[in-house]
């Protein structure tokens, strides 16, 4: 096979991975660097760079279905089992963190959710839900499924690495973000096994809510 043809074949087979990676990096870069001021602009920035642009890229540029990128939900027993398994795994990891690290002290929740159940629900179902959905759709849906075609399950740590690296770059890495790192791993495996980031999103949301509830519970016991 001539070298030229080899290059063409490589570029042909890897172009989606390459352009997808470039898009992911570009979106994350813009998400970090795009100047914004205030909550509305911050949320808009998150919404555009981590959700809208990847979606437009998939539909307009790649002309593919969102289902190819994990936006699908088929209730299957195996998928539910994996969901439960990963949820338990996530709790095990966080238990270890609570048990052996200062995670419990470093994990910060807003004051208002500690004192009022309804504000707790608002916080979990509005803010956490919104953030987690975008987070899952970008890291699991866009990055993971872009890479998974070529890298298989190895795409899980790669996607997680994207997340962690950007947390580090933005100096946002803290115990508060630890549960999201955990579900980045467990959710990645769940998405790999179920071919859907919706499962990982549901698992992550359940995990965060239960974890927050538990931490609030134990904080009031002290």
């Amino acid at each position, binding site marked *: 096979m001539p070298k030229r*043809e080899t290059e*063409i*074949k490589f*570029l*042909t087979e890897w*172009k989606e991975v390459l*352009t997808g990676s*470039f*898009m992911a990096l*570009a*979106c994350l870069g*813009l998400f970090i660097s*795009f100047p*914004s*001021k205030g909550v*509305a*602009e911050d949320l*808009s*920035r998150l919404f*555009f*760079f981590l959700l*809208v*642009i990847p979606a*437009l*890229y998939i539909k*307009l*540029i790649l002309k593919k279905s969102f289902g190819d990128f994990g936006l699908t939900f088929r209730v299957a027993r195996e998928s539910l089992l994996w969901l439960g398994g990963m949820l338990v795994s996530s709790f095990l990891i966080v238990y270890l963190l609570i048990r052996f690290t200062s995670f419990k002290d470093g994990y910060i929740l807003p004051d208002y959710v500690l004192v009022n159940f309804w504000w707790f629900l608002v916080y979990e179902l509005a803010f956490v839900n919104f953030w987690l959905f975008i987070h899952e759709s970008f890291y699991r849906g866009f990055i993971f499924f872009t890479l998974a075609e070529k890298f298989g399950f190895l795409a899980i740590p790669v996607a997680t690495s994207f997340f962690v690296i950007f947390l580090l770059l933005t100096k946002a890495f803290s115990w508060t973000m630890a549960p999201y790192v955990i579900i980045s791993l467990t959710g990645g495996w769940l998405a790999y096994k179920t071919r859907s980031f919706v499962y990982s999103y549901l698992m992550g949301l359940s995990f965060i809510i239960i974890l927050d509830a538990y931490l609030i519970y134990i904080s009031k016991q002290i």
Partner: protein
Amino acid sequence: MRMKKKRAVIPLASLIALSLALPVRPAQALFGGGGGMKFSYPSPTQASNEVMGDLGVDKGELMNSVDVMNVARQKKMAPQVVLSFSPANPVDGERVTVSATPTYFMNSDPKNLYFTWYLQRGQCVPDGESWDQIDMPITGSNAACNLDGDDSITVNDYKIAAARIIANGGWAWNRTHALGPDDSLPYTVGETDETGLGDGFEAPMGGSDQKGKNEAGNPDMPAYCYVHDWVSGNEYELDWCEHLFPEDGNIPGELGDGEFHMEEEQYWHTDPTNQDTAGIGRPDEANALGLGINEFSWTYQTGDRVGVAIEGISMESTIHDDSSYKTMWALPKNTCDLGEFLGEWDYKNGTTTLCLTEAGEVPYVEGEDCAPFSEETDTAYINNPSPPAAPPGGITDTDTTIPSDGSSGPTNWADTSTIRVEGTSPIAGGETMGLSSYLLPTFSVSRDTGAVAHPDNSIIYGNTTTVTKLVTEDVTMIEAQLTANVCTTTETTTTVTDVLGYQIGDATTETEGPVCEEAEANVFDMSKESLNACLVDNLMTPSDVQQDGSKIKLSLYSTPQSPMNDPKNIGEIESTADTLVVTASAQNVNDENFLRYDWEVYGGDSDSIVTDDWGEPFAKEMLIDSTQTSGIGVKSLKFKLAFADEPKYLKVQVVATEYEAGTTNRVLRKGNESTIIRLSSASDTITAYNGVLSDDGVSLAFGNAASLEAANVICANSAEPELKEDYVLCPVVKDQIIGLKYAGAATSFLWTINNQPVTYKECFFEGCDLEEQTASTFFPILDEPGSIYTVTLSAVDSVTGEKINLTRSFKVVTPLVKIVTLDDSGGAQPVFLGTYTSLDGTTTYADMSQTDFQTVPGSTANFTREFYPRSLPAEYLDPDNPEKTKTAWFVDGTDPTIPETEKPPGYTPATVDPDKTSVSFATTRLEGEYHLVAFNTLYAPSTNIKKILNANWDINYDQFYEKQLGASIDVEMVPALTTANSNNSPPKKVLAAMISGLPAYINFLFRIVMTSLLLLFGIWIVLSLFPSPITNETEPR
């Protein structure tokens, strides 16, 4: 016989001798001789004068008194009435009350007078008719006004209309259903006279207090009625004496007869079951005839007129031999033409010669030289081609027919007259008189050429005959017999002239008379109908009476009191031009908000006030920042006083117009008012100074040897924006002493600070006068920061009298210091932060940091300090300390002025100038590193200033203000200085300008969408560059 003669001569001679022997004084005294040597022939007049002179009677005054007595009869005051309306300016549908105030009646109480009101509704006067017509024709539209049912509308109908309103008093006379169970329909029950309620009223002549006058069955108490002629002052007795009450036409009875039966009740709309339907305390009949009704109210409609005839007795008695006084009527306008009722002559005692103004008519015109009573001019013409026989020549008056061509002959012959000709044209040269010119079909003749000639067969007309008649009559009044001898003499003078006005022959005069006949004196034949007719002339509308209401009363108020005109610096904050506000206040208008106002402003000087000649008003464009000058509700005018020609006075005039409702553009009334405003001149100024110690060290001055006056001026006017602000509101610091000096023509002054006059018990400053204030003053700043001092100077120019008001304002601030670079370029420069744009968007200024500077490594930085306010006096900085030890610069924490041995290792060498106003150092730091520069000093009044403050304003020594001032900056080492990008041009890109104006979030969304699209477009381009999958096109499918 001889003896008899002798005896007669002896006494005569003795008398003569005696006369010559006796002193002459008695005769002179009696006959007015004077001088002892000179005799005058005495006349009775002289004798009379001498006698009255001896009695002390001033003949001139006596004559005046006689003159007054001669006409006193005509000067007496007859009964009068004055009407007033409320409201003065009624509108349609409004309830109007008219009040009558009678005077000069003898009756003890006005309530005893008969007020015969009459109301002419506007609708009663058809189009094309006049309201003062005696008989108003009945047309379809005014048929309702014919209340008495006759064939015309007269004053009686107006009386009935008013009487019904008065007597009815609002009672529902025409209702068709009962009001409640106890009510009956009107006029179905009740007859007051029969039931004994007694609502009739018998009205004696001259008022209700004249019982018995002219009443039936009492012939011994007749009443005598008179009318007053307001022109001549005469009063005439009427040959009848009856009330002027409204007459009820065909129903039985009349008002004032004491009976008021059912038909009358119904006619006058009164309640038959109530003796006082109107509820005013009198019987119905008395109300209907107007007894004591001095007020009348009705619902006004446009065109309504009202009048009243008040019957009562006059202050003057009659000439009849009884106790009677004159029964008279007062009318609102005192208008009644009695001329036609005066009979054949106007009586006047004695005999005089009177000239007739009209044959057989009165009044006569008295005068010695009677004017021609009549002149008659006849026009004749000749058609005889032959010249008339001479003498006298000219024309005759035998031909009196006017030619049939329709032209009238000339009536006023002049030296050169135009004579019309008919027929063929005249033949030039063949005429005996010659023609100066001719123009068909006319030709002109010259008067000095002789007699008129004319061509054959032509007709010349215009020849005149003038006849003048003079008629005189001698009238002799024989008062005792009330008769007069009237002797008439008639003179007729005939003068004949030709066409050119030449008199032909002598005038002839014929005299007839005198023809005398005896006439009855004092005949006055005015009927009741005629007097009633006069009532119509006395109808009034509210606007006739209310002179005040016919014009809008306007008042003008202006502020400020002594406004300043300043044509300079219009629109700038330092402009001293006042904004004048003139406000109009209108009275007696229906709705002030709907008044139209038209304002005009004039400028002038004192001559304009004297002559009231203000020239043309200022155009609207010349009234800077003016509000509207015309329109509805524009009750105030506001404009800036910035007139370039600097008038000394302004005249502001306003015209207010009120329009009548319901009619387009119909002016109801107008009003105008003006006010004159004296302007102050902006050329006069107050200059502010830092008050400094004078060279004597104990008083204040505007300058001294160390600091000249010009250097101490603070807050002067300037073109720079910041300095302009200081000029308008001068920043000053506590304990600072401010000097103020006036420059201008004024000579008398009053300084006030916050409205408190400036006073001082002794002179302690330059230009002081202990007796009165001068053009200079000083005052200390004693209030805390944030306070405002408003200093006002009221001054008068004693020469011109011009008043001047000037004001300067000062704001107490906390003193500050900042460090600024001394380097114009290079060295250290402040960091450019951005730009800011002036409010009008025209100018862009660089915004430079005051704390962050930058310079390149190795350069030399020079700094100085700058104080705020700029006017901070230097002697207040670190005072009483020649070494200035409390003032220091620091470079990187080290004071460069301390000994080298005390400086820390690695300090930055720097140089401070001797008076510690600046510092200079060579930068030693590397790129990205900083130098720190700081400055400290002390603000406090000096000891001498403290002494002055203590001595003159009682400031205790423990109350003085001291403040440590300090500032510090960073100087960053940069590879290159960034300069301010002071792009002063406005944005040129429309889209950019539009986007920049959008709300921030929209702007953000726009940017993020554009970024997203750009990213997607970029990745699409990249993807398109990737190769397509390799396909073997030859491979069969």
